[in-house]
């Protein structure tokens, strides 16, 4: 029987060249298609990997709850340990119940918001963060199998979280509003001046391209304008903390504190479809009767 020697330079060199050529050709000639192929091929892999990911995320949450509810209280004196054992047990239970109650409150708020809004939304849990240091993203426990697709908006009842950039069959990657690569159409709620909300490198956000004559000032709220897909009009994005004149001198830009801290969010809603009123509905015109 012939043994394969993986360290033979000939095989290695040939494989390296073939891989490099395939990747280079694909990368230069068909970058979008190659990305699509890799993403589609990765969908089942993502499903498989999502199981250990969920398991570890569950254990991690459990340990975090335990730490918050029990381990942090283990500073009691040794002589009091016996007397306080029952109390600690009850405190641990109480903490778990509080955590459950808080989760129930959050989920009830999500459900309430979901019922009030006209669009279709899917609730999802955050199970992880970006696997690299280059982007600010969160990983959701729902994916293509649940109807999620790239470019869908993600929010909480408090406001915008970000938008989906990648999906596998069981998970989704959400680019946070605080990532410099994200861009969401926004407007200043009071003055109605429109602009583009981008993340900044220090973890906050800014509204760019505000008209020079705008009356926007610190304290004004910025909401989604609904002009570009993914988000309905009027969702809170953040509050202005400072206004600057941009280097080019044609526009103003405003620094924002995001309404939602994406780094610590636990449950979110994904906007699958918007309940966007038609032009006629917006103008108050009666609906046309169908010819039948």
């Amino acid at each position, binding site marked *: 029987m012939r043994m394969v020697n993986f360290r033979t330079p000939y095989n*290695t060199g040939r494989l390296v060249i073939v891989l490099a050529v395939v990747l280079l050709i*694909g990368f230069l000639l068909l970058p979008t298609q190659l990305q699509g192929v890799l993403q589609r091929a990765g969908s089942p892999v993502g499903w498989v990997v999502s199981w250990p990911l969920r398991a570890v995320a569950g254990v991690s949450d459990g340990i975090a709850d335990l730490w918050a509810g029990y381990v942090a209280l283990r500073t009691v004196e040794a002589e009091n340990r016996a007397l306080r054992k029952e109390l600690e047990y009850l405190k641990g239970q109480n903490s778990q119940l509080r955590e459950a109650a808080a989760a129930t409150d959050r989920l009830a708020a999500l459900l309430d918001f979901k019922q009030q809004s006209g669009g279709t939304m899917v609730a999802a849990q955050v199970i992880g963060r970006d696997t690299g240091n280059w982007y600010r993203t969160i990983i959701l426990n729902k994916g293509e199998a649940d109807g999620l697709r790239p470019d869908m908006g993600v929010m909480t009842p408090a406001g915008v979280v970000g938008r989906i950039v990648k999906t596998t069959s069981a998970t989704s990657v959400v680019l946070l509003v605080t990532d410099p690569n994200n861009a969401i159409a926004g407007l200043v709620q009071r003055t109605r001046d429109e602009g583009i909300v981008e993340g900044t490198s220090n973890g906050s956000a800014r509204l760019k391209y505000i008209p020079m004559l705008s009356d926007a000032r610190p304290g004004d709220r910025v909401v989604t304008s609904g002009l570009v897909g993914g988000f309905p009009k009027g969702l809170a994005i953040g509050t202005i903390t400072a206004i600057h004149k941009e280097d080019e001198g044609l526009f103003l830009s405003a620094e924002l504190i995001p309404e939602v801290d994406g780094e610590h969010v636990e449950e979110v809603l994904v906007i699958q479809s918007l309940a966007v009123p038609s032009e006629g509905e917006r103008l108050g015109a009666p609906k046309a009767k169908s010819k039948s």
Partner: protein
Amino acid sequence: MKVLVWSALIALMVPLQSVLLPYVKIAGVAPDIALVAACLAGLLGGELHGLLVGVTLGWVMSLFSAIDPVVAMGVKGAVGYAAGFAGRHVVYLSWPMLTVGIFFLSCLAGLATISWLALNGQQDLWRALRTVVLPEGILDALVGGALYRLLWSRFNVERWMAEYRT
């Protein structure tokens, strides 16, 4: 068997990187365990192993990140290949030397990534170099060096490498 072991390790590295390592971020930067794994795979198994493990890890990790999969595969694959090439030409590798090697490879990988991202206007090169590349290089080197030293002290790595390579 090797394929199964590596598949299981790769599947476990995703939750380790995305769930547990964010808790140990220093200045907003976490070590890149996939890069360390590609380095060690190259070192222990040679260029081909380093390349394959690097490319696979880059691809799988990119499924759970916003990064371009081709960039992640290319960078991690190159790191694994370079580590394998270096490992084949070094007679004895001490853990401090390996730590320095991983630091340089991590910095090179970071430079390649920010060069690509800067070309697309997605990153400020100098800021990224200061805030991501160098801290990540140090963390990767520390994690890789510690892991290698642990392996060296607990197992007969030389014999293991000889068996693994045949």
